[in-house]
């Protein structure tokens, strides 16, 4: 597969690993955060940590848009799905996320009609095919996915569809990163920046991290070599005392982002004054809602959602995992009461969640590639 296989080449990995190890100052520990859940997934799926020296720790960040959805919003979605003649549509990632009364799969067992779709356009198709039903699309994702929801809404309006609406749960990445930076619990040395969010918002929004907080940021692609190269670029910056925003994923990410996408979002959505993030609490201007102009497609206006705040189960430590304060295996219920089959929290059930990634892929004692630590030393 072009543009994929070349970036999974094991030989080049050894070379990069050696370079990275060579840049580690003896006695110093490095903590690098990968913000994006997709990066967490890749890191574990390809066994990337095997190529890193002991002194570099990867801290998993909150960039998993499923993980940060509070239980109350899942309940709201199920409430919507329970209304007469409603077909709820959702990405596969959401189907097993637990609300206070169960997940979408559980709700279907009780009689709702929640269908999995691959694209918001599939929801539109369903709406066209089922004129007697109300088709609601549960929109989740960061700025990566928001433009697709936006374009779908614009298209629905152009077609004059009356039975399609969106339950908007899009969130924005910068406030989450800022919450991490301002958190007293964490000392990070640098950030592996989100890859696909950046195709939309560009690289400029991260400049404040380098400028005001003095931490280097490298926007990274999703193949294992992309991530390794990004780590190398971060280590190079650190060793040279620089803190800048760099773009490793230049083949896909334009520095200025995608204007058309940003315009589409702006046309259909606006920032909410505040939104609750699981584990991070209420963050202002961190999420999107449907604009007044598109009110006829706003599920929250068309239907009454209960909007009840549901506290996370006491045993759940997702919040700390999302902030990178705890590693998945440090959570008290990890792997025992909380497993992918019996998830207590979102980190365990989302395919990009740190706990799911660690449980499904990384649950073993790692033997770092010994070569990496030795070759390259003077």
């Amino acid at each position, binding site marked *: *597969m072009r543009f*994929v296989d070349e970036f*999974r*080449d*094991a030989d080049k*990995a*050894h070379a990069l690993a050696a370079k990275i190890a060579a840049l580690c100052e003896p006695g110093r520990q490095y903590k690098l955060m990968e913000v994006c859940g997709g990066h967490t997934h890749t890191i*574990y*799926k*390809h*066994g*990337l*940590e*095997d*190529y890193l020296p002991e002194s570099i720790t990867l801290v998993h960040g909150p960039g998993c848009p499923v993980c940060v959805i509070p239980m109350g919003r899942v309940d709201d979605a199920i409430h919507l799905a329970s209304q007469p003649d409603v077909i709820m549509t959702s990405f*596969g990632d959401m*189907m*097993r996320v*637990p*609300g*206070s*009364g*169960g997940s979408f*799969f*559980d709700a*279907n*067992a*009780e009689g709702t009609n929640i269908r*999995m*779709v*691959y694209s918001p356009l*599939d929801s539109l198709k369903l709406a066209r095919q089922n004129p007697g039903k109300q088709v609601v699309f549960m929109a989740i994702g960061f700025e990566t996915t928001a433009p697709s929801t936006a374009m779908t809404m614009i298209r629905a309006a152009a077609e004059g569809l009356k039975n399609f609406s969106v339950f908007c749960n899009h969130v924005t990445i910068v406030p989450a990163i800022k919450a991490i930076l301002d958190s007293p619990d964490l000392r990070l040395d640098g950030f592996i920046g989100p890859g696909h969010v950046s195709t939309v918002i560009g690289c400029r929004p991260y400049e404040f991290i380098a400028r005001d907080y003095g931490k280097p940021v490298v926007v990274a692609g999703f193949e*294992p*070599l992309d991530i390794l190269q990004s780590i190398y670029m971060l280590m190079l910056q650190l060793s040279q005392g620089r803190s800048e925003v760099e773009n490793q994923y230049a083949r896909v990410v334009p520095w200025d982002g995608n204007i058309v996408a940003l315009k589409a979002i702006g046309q259909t959505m606006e920032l909410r004054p505040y939104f609750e993030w699981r584990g991070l609490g209420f963050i202002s201007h961190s999420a999107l809602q449907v604009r007044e102009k598109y009110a006829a497609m706003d599920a929250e206006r068309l239907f009454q959602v209960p909007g009840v705040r549901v506290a996370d*189960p006491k*045993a759940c430590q997702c919040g700390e995992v999302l902030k990178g304060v705890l590693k998945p*295996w*440090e959570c008290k*219920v*990890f*792997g*025992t*009461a909380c*497993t*992918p*089959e*019996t998830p*207590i929290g979102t980190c365990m059930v989302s*395919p990009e969640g740190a706990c799911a990634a660690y*449980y*499904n*892929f*990384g*649950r*073993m*004692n*790692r033997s770092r*590639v010994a070569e990496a630590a030795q070759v390259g030393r003077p």
Partner: protein
Amino acid sequence: MSRWIDEALAEHAQAEHEHSAHEPLTPAGRAELPLAEAQDREQQVLDRIDRARRRRPKVREERVTMSHGAGGKATHTLIEAVFLDAFRNPLLEPLEDAAALQVNGARIALTTDSYVVSPLFFPGGDIGDLAVNGTVNDLSVSGARPLYLSAGFILEEGFPVAELTRLAESMRDAAAAAGVHIVTGDTKVVQKGKADGCYINTAGVGVIERDIDLGVAHAQPGDAIIVSGPIGDHGVTIMLARGELDIEADIESDTAPLNHLVAGLLDQVPSVRAMRDATRGGVATILNEIARAADVGVLVSEDDIPVRAEVRGASELLGIDPMYVACEGRLVAVVPGQDAEAAVAALRAHPLGEQAAVIGHVRQEQPGIVQLKTAFGGTRIVDLLVGDPLPRIC
């Protein structure tokens, strides 16, 4: 909902308490606590998880969900907690693809499967082919020569007779290709809205003539794990055939009867320890069944697992892993290490086994766990999935 959380917490806490109570005491009578460095702490957690995984499964849900039908963890838990618990007997316990029975001195294999695939007709076959081949294969991988099948039909009111006839003809042809006979059956009709057109159940009987005792519990460190061909064809075909994804590809279901392939293998390599039909849950599920049943470790190599380019492309596009996608004409075999080459050669001698390959080995380390060496060179675990985002593949 949080009720089950409190129960689960209490259960695990109790089990851990009992575990520590059984820790061997030093002569002085106190439990010796190991020094806890970060790595040791992580290892302790990993041990705790291992213990949790070995405990008897409980079904937490109050109702059956689609996950229970996917062939993954939820299915296994349901089977063990509900069916095994109720029907418990030594013949059922191995939970192999077929039960091995003794009837008046003859060794017989008995199996059953239900087919609920949607759509009924797809590139490469239909529900009728699946029904015959699936049962023939379950018998074959149990070391039996498949002989007779039953076929039970549950038809939806309004289902076209012409389509039913097509299915019957498919089954006739599939049975002829496999050399088996459909000797008894049943027909029921249910109201419009149920049965999705047609559900089929087949049961099969075969005779075990060879002096072999196959079972995944027999796997031993040093054994080679072989797959008979490229994986994931069937599941991806079904997903695409549903038409919901607007994807076109030249992929066909791999549904096929494996009895001749298996006979060829067993003729050349009588030392085969186990075979499994890779269906729902894919190759990954079988690897985990081996690791669990024999309490061994399994290490496979991503580079060695055959996958068609289009199956890989579709899987990447959809974000799924071919290792978990159903096949319907592939087997996984466990053979002693020194016989691996002969086994691959025997499989490749047959058209259905052209791309047979060794994908990994059984080992002593990390018992119960399946590990994968990725194409990238790192290692990761391959666990059972809970459910599966592909409802009804077979």
